[in-house]
């Protein structure tokens, strides 16, 4: 698709990039000291991909252990550490950096700005996030407090009190866990402040709020959510650290503290966090689906309103994670209803995406394949979500593999799929090279098959009563074959992810040149060269509609005439 028909040669700086890149050390130095939003975005994304592989490897270790009953592959205490690290890694070291990396790269380009509003704070945010990841993984060697005698945290990623109190969680591994999340939380809040300021204050001339690409809108909403949902976690972690280091009693039941308070504080963060992760996935679908259906997005204002609605409703649903702690029926009813209500705006979105594809001239490039699979899988994930939102059903299935299957359906089936799609869509912009489509198809189909073998069937041992977080189980409970098949599905996904990693490296060196606009797209990032120069746009663009490049390519029938 490199043979673009983009008639905007004049808008691009055609000066060839300087050939000398300097020595290897100068290269590294330029990345360390950079304040360029694109380089920082790429560092976020690279960091996330590394931890995707690490967290995925941990998941495979867990699946090997669970593949057969009475397995001795991992000892119980190691199993606990690995699933704690898998959860923490995937949410905080993979998910958050990935969404922020894409925002860093795309938001300034899409609003026609030269950089984020605060470039140096941007670099600071990244390095704080990086420090958080390093601290968490350092616990593998320093967790007990002695150099070289380590143990990773084993308190699960939701870390219920009083398990995390000093009496029950000795050594320093829990401290590394808490501190690394505080530190990376600072980075995340800094990035959110930056995205908000960039979106509100740096838009190019003519780009009113309702001419912004939907991706920018969704990131604005996500950033607003980050401000109020990451901070409760930070506050709770500070309380935990006070308990552990200064002898406080926040969650110490012997001194009158109430461990359920931790659960509330954690899920006030934890549930909206899912939406913080999934809205950027929606954002990617919002960009990819119209371009590959050759139609403008259906129902732009409804999409914005639905996203804002999801953001607002998600703040009032957290205790559906806690139906089994014993709340009053009024509280149960409130959280059942508010949780079910999330289905309304998400339903609006699904219909809008289908309506965008309806009657379009669909091109199934790999990016579009991933986004199409996302539509179906997200629907399924939403349906099991509605099932679990009903308190009696949740009482039955709480802490079972049904819950694990449900949220992995969201996190992998929706978020990871969309971000894979996003990689295929924006990799040409970020590197100037096309990702290999043949390898991409292998990646997609293997991952799709692996995903469904693994997570469709994982619901069944859950329904049959298999609890989560167990390191092994007895044979003859009807779980054996299901677990084996689920583990095989996990392995297939692992192979597919390795193909993806290989594809990125291979295409970076051997891929065909992308040109500025390989997909014949409509948003501003495609109006500059690939990869864009440090200043993005040689002179500030001016826009008159939601699809500035459409206006440019079709001067006889511009969007601005209809909006």
């Amino acid at each position, binding site marked *: 698709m490199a043979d673009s028909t983009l008639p*905007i040669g*004049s*808008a*691009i*700086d*055609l*000066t060839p990039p300087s050939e000398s890149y300097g020595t290897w050390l100068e290269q590294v130095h330029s990345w360390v000291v950079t304040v360029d939003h694109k380089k920082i975005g790429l560092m976020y994304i690279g960091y996330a991909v590394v931890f995707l592989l690490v967290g995925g490897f941990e998941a495979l270790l867990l699946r090997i252990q669970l593949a057969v009953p009475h397995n001795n592959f991992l000892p119980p205490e190691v199993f606990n550490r690995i699933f704690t690290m898998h959860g923490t890694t995937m949410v905080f070291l993979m998910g958050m950096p990935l969404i922020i990396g894409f925002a860093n790269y795309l938001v300034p380009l899409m609003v026609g700005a030269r950089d984020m*509003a*605060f470039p140096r704070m941007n670099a600071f945010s990244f390095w704080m996030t990086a420090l958080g990841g390093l601290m968490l993984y350092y616990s593998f060697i320093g967790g007990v407090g002695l150099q070289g005698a380590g143990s990773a945290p084993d308190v699960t990623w939701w870390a219920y009190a009083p398990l995390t109190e000093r009496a029950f969680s000795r050594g320093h591994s829990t401290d590394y866990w808490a501190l690394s999340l505080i530190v990376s939380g600072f980075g995340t*809040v800094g990035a*959110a*402040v*930056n995205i*908000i*300021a*960039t979106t*509100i*204050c*740096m838009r190019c*001339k*003519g780009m009113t709020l309702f001419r912004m690409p939907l991706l920018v809108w969704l990131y604005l909403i996500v*950033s*607003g959510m980050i*401000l*109020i*949902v*990451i*901070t*409760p976690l*930070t*506050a709770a972690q*500070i*309380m935990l650290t*006070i308990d552990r280091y*200064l*002898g*406080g*009693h*926040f969650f110490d039941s012997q*001194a*009158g*503290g*109430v461990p359920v*308070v931790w659960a509330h*504080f954690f899920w*006030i963060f934890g549930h909206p966090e899912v939406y913080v992760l999934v809205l950027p996935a929606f954002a990617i679908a919002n960009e990819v689906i119209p371009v590959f259906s050759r139609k403008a997005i259906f129902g732009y204002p409804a999409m914005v309103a639905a996203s804002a609605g999801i953001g607002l409703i998600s703040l009032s649903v957290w205790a559906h994670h806690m139906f089994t702690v014993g709340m009053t029926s009024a509280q149960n009813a409130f959280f059942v209803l508010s949780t079910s209500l999330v289905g309304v705006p998400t339903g609006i979105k699904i219909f809008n995406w289908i309506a965008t594809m309806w009657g379009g001239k669909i091109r199934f490039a790999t990016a579009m394949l991933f986004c199409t699979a996302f539509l179906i899988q997200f629907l399924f994930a939403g349906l099991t979500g509605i099932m679990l939102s009903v308190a009696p059903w949740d009482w039955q299935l709480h802490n079972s593999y049904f819950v694990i299957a449900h949220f992995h359906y969201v996190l992998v089936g929706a978020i990871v799929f969309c971000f894979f799609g996003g990689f295929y869509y924006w990799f040409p912009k970020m590197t100037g090279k096309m990702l290999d489509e043949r390898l991409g198809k292998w990646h997609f189909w293997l991952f799709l098959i692996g995903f469904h073998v693994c997570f469709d069937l994982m619901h069944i041992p859950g329904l049959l009563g298999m609890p989560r977080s167990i390191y092994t189980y007895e044979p003859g409970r009807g779980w054996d074959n299901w677990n084996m098949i689920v583990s095989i599905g996990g392995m297939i996904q692992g192979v597919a992810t390795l193909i993806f990693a290989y594809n990125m490296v291979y295409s970076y060196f051997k891929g065909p040149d992308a040109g500025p606009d390989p997909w014949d797209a409509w948003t*501003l990032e495609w*109006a500059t060269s690939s990869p864009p120069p440090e200043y993005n*746009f*040689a*002179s500030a*663009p*001016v*826009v*008159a509609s939601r699809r*500035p490049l459409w*206006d*440019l390519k079709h001067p006889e029938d*511009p969007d*601005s005439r209809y909006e």
Partner: protein
Amino acid sequence: MSASTIPLAHRAANEDWVLPYHGTVAMAALIVAESAIFTIFVVAYLYYIGKSVSGPQPRQVLELPIFNTVCLLSSSFTIWIAERALKKGSMGVFSLWWALTVVLGAIFLGGTGLEWNKLIYHDGLTISTNLFGTTFYSLVGLHASHVIVGLVMLSIVLIFSLTGKLRSEHSKQLEVLSLYWHFVDGVWVVVFTVVYIIGR
């Protein structure tokens, strides 16, 4: 550089394109985030009122810090006067009122120090004594740490102003700082109400 703009100028080209100042927007966003942190600590404080299993209890040891509160709240007023003076370009008036703001903030901080000194050495209340101590020191301490950060920034500005580096074109940046200071004062109203009125 063979570069030019994207030639997409129809209606918007001749209109003024003014967007908000990014410092103000970022500070507003930061204040939202900080408010969420304080909310969690305030909720924890309110929830744990009267749940301590051992003494001392708030009513036995806490005294109303009226003087402190008056100092801190009036510093919001003095910083506002200082800002107005800066916009008019009268640097002497600015430095005077800005210094007064720093002094009032420092008095508040000193008052908190004296209060904690009495609580720790006279009443034997530390952060690990009971739930009241844990929630009290963490909530008031969280606020005090924000006062310290604010005072450091205010003092840096005061040094710039006394050495003649500050001019009236900086008033936009100082507005961002004063927004933070007003927030710290506003939080104190909440903390005061929760700790010294509801919790006592």
